[in-house]
């Protein structure tokens, strides 16, 4: 059990996630209050990683629900195992010869024939330590699904008409991430603690890169972080996050580069930018000597 904000921060750093005190506070409060933690921020700043790291520091299982358009309760919560149910009916017919309808109905609509999906699994979990439920990119899902989540997130219980209400024995640690492609409903937000993850400062980014890519030379790391900070000051379609910094750093290690020159930069631009327009804009700025 991690009993203080310091413990959380140190453990996260041990798990190679450099976090500031405010994020550690949010994680700690979320743990002690048993409230879901809603993380918002630009793509690639390390929101999903928080969920993974929480599972690692609490040494518990991570259950991830990747949201997408059209996600419904059948894919997120539970589904009846229809082939298995049909087989059970056929078997019971051959065994008894007579159809005991009531018994069959009770049998085939029991937990044995339930297919667990990511939301049901943490509620039915029997482990001593609560599991971590990561609901990733919730803004991609439909508003109907968001409304459906309300029961799960407020009471940590699920109602299955054929079985009844199942309540979690231990509240899972829930982490929800959003890229803010759409605004989430207030009803969902007020059930969560909120934390905005911003782009890292130069010092923090330097620490992250040195922790994640230790084989990189100090001078080259500084050069990478410095360039990334300057790129983020310019209005690109998609500003590179920390994920892009790490990708670029790993690419430079793979290419055995000791410093960044014009050719290296040109060869590895794909690691930094994800849009053709951004690459062209960067080339133009580089040619004109603006900022770089």
């Amino acid at each position, binding site marked *: 059990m991690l009993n203080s904000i310091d413990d959380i921060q140190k453990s996260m750093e041990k798990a190679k996630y450099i976090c500031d*005190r405010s994020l550690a506070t949010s994680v700690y409060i979320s743990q002690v209050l048993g409230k879901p933690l809603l993380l918002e921020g630009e793509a690639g700043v390390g929101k999903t990683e928080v969920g993974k790291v929480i599972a690692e520091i609490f040494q518990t299982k991570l259950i991830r629900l990747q949201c997408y358009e059209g996600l419904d309760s059948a894919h997120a919560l539970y589904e009846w195992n229809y082939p298995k149910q049909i087989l059970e009916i056929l078997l019971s017919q051959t065994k008894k010869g007579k159809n005991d309808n009531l018994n069959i109905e009770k049998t085939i609509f029991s937990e044995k024939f339930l297919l667990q999906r990511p939301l049901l699994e943490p509620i039915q979990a029997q482990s001593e330590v609560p599991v971590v439920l990561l609901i990733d990119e919730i803004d991609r899902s439909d508003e109907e699904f968001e409304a459906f989540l309300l029961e799960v997130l407020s009471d940590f219980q699920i109602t299955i008409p054929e079985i009844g209400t199942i309540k979690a024995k231990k509240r899972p640690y829930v982490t929800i991430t959003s890229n803010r492609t759409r605004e989430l409903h*207030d009803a969902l937000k007020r059930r969560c*603690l909120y934390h905005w993850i911003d782009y890292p400062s130069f010092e923090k980014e330097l620490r992250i890169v040195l922790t994640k890519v230790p084989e990189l030379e100090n001078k080259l790391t500084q050069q990478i972080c410095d360039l990334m900070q300057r790129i983020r000051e310019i209005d690109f379609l998609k500003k590179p996050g920390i994920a892009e910094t790490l990708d670029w750093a790993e690419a430079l290690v793979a290419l055995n580069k000791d410093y960044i020159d014009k050719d290296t930069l040109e060869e590895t631009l794909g690691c930094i930018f994800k849009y053709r327009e951004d690459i062209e804009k960067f080339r133009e700025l580089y040619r004109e000597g603006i900022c770089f």
Partner: protein
Amino acid sequence: MSKVLFSSQFPSKFLPRLLDFCRKLKEEGVKVTLHQEIDACRSLQYINISNHNDFYCTLKTNLLSRREDIQIFDEIFFHYWDFSKKEIMEKRGTDYTTEDEPAEYPDEKEHLYLEIADYAQDDLKEEKEFLEIPAYSPAERLLEKDFSTFEDEYLEAIKKAISLIAQKIKIKKSLRKKASYKKTHLFDLRRTMRKKLSSKRGDY
């Protein structure tokens, strides 16, 4: 029967101030629900509230739910609790202090730190008396302050306030371009002139 929402160990004198702070946030348009206020109170039991940074982060994570509100929250928070913004912002980095080693506070803020520490040490016996004890008032403190000791932030705020007051009390000249709702048959010379001058036809 009412449900016990937080432990009786919670410094009761502190509660009215926290609720007042939430009210101020709501006045500025930040959506703060009752549940969030209760959770904020519960959260404060788990942290060292004399640590300004932890206090700030805890209230922020509990009471906010939109990125746009962060700036409003910061403005109200630093004004209301009279904490040093610089001190907290510096600590928002990766460096941190342990709970046993509270950060050093400037002399002028020392009494406030002591005041909050006192809140934390309050026990249940004092619960009934909290309304009788004079509480800290930011407005009163500001009234006693000398202008020469004001920080740049305060001076900026004063400038803004003066310009707002000036806007309100300035002599307003009529800039009416549309007809008044008042039912009158009198000829409006200024409106007619403006209409003619702004007309593209140029038939005057």
